[in-house]
């Protein structure tokens, strides 16, 4: 096999593309620009860390099935960890989101990074909601019977039945977490490719700018 033939392979082309866009020093950087020096940057990594704890505690709950935590003190404690990690996750994500808005973090070709972040937030809201309606307790009874009217009014309730415990549980533990994790991974890859957005240049003369084409 000739080297040119190897270079034409899809695998080789993909590897070159990944190496070009995201070399190891960008994926796992050991330096940051000096302007990356604020508490606001903590909330991005806090969101990811909370997501890790949410998934880990959710996996423990999954081990013994959806009814286990109602009758076990240990199970209830794991549920408490799951709940509070979700609360921390959303708190961190909302602060992160508004921090990024204040920085206009979409500048310099980072619009897709912003958009994947917003979609991740919306997917996370849906994931949490399906968790609340699949708890199989009074909260899930009340929240599902109230929420059905909003979703039914859009027509979506015909296919996304919040009163169907099995359907909501599947969305909560498979489909939506998968979406949230994939979106988060994509978001992080985009952050690593583009880097952290630089401060606004208050001097009107801008040289060597990252001009979005």
């Amino acid at each position, binding site marked *: 096999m000739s080297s040119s033939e190897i270079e034409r392979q899809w695998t080789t082309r993909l590897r070159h593309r990944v190496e070009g866009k995201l070399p190891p020093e960008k994926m796992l950087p050991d330096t940051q620009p000096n302007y990356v020096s604020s508490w606001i940057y903590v909330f991005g990594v806090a969101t990811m860390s909370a997501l890790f704890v949410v998934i880990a505690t959710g996996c423990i709950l999954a081990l013994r099935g959806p009814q286990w935590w109602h009758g076990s003190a240990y199970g209830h404690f794991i549920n408490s960890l799951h709940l509070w990690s979700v609360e921390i996750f959303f708190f961190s994500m909302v602060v992160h989101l508004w921090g990024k808005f204040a920085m206009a973090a979409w500048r310099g070709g980072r619009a897709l990074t912003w958009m994947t972040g917003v979609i991740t937030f919306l997917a996370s809201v849906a994931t949490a909601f399906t968790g609340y309606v699949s708890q199989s*307790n009074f909260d899930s009874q009340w929240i599902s019977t109230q929420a059905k009217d909003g979703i039914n009014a*859009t027509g979506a309730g015909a296919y996304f039945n919040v009163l169907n415990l099995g359907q909501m549980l599947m969305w909560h533990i498979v489909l939506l977490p998968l979406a949230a994790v994939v979106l988060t991974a994509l978001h992080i890859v985009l952050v690593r490719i583009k880097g952290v957005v630089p401060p606004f240049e208050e001097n009107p003369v*801008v040289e060597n700018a990252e001009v979005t084409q």
Partner: protein
Amino acid sequence: MTKKAFNPDVDAPKWKGGYHPYDIVKEGSIAIAVILVLTLVLAIVFGSPDEKAITIKTWSNAAPLDFANTALEELNGTSTTAAYGAPYNTASTGQQLGPLQLAKWVGVRIPVNAAKDFVISPLKSLPDQPTLDHQLAVWSAASSSTKNAWLTSYGKAKVSFVNGQVVANTTSAGPVPVMINQLTQMARSGALDQALVTGHGFYTTDYTKPLLFLADSEYLPGLAQHQHLTGDQWGMMNETGNYPGQSWLWLYTFWYQIPPFKTSANADVLVWGLMMVLSAVLLLVPFIPGLRSVPRKLKLYRLIWREHYQETE
């Protein structure tokens, strides 16, 4: 080839300043440890709510007359479910977003016949009930106008709960008093819970019918009111006990508290429509002139990058 003009709300200046050491793996590890400890502390101190689910058995034992009245509404077509429209039935057009009848267009995808599914079929499933079977046969053979006359008569009668029986002070309601009383007995025994859940067979995870029946009662909203969960109490974002709940739904819940949504018959679809538009706006901020300039004009970024601006000024 012309060079595109620099737009401060779209483009970013290229960083020509210095760099400092940054250990991303160490930062990530410390962050996970800190979040884990914080989660443990919150879980140990506050725990989590788990108010037991109510059943039709608990409802009918706690409030037998409310149950009997709800059963009558299922039978005469005036309950929320019976009059709902899509996706359960064709009893109404449903909510409209201007000229758009979204639910009606999608149609009946989760068929629920309130009278048949909640009353008639469960009663028919009871074994060895010759009197009830006869009354059900009388009901089935009657014309619609006769059924309506019976139901109207029952609705006007004084209904009481005496010695474990639902008694209606009327002689012109045909088989309705027996049907309502027998359904109440069935509910109080727990058999109706099973009959509604196992409608699709032995294995099921679909609680649509018992939840719709429960939601038609006065009992469920009464409990929710006590737990500060109703719509006018910002209920969608709350949960039982003093827990933060889904506080991230505050904006969604907020619209229900103010006109015109608060009083509109189409509140749900209007709020959903508005939230979809607002979500799209948030998603597309980078492309919306004016809105994408807000951060630059607000100058909150000066707080975030204060060290950078102190060094450059």
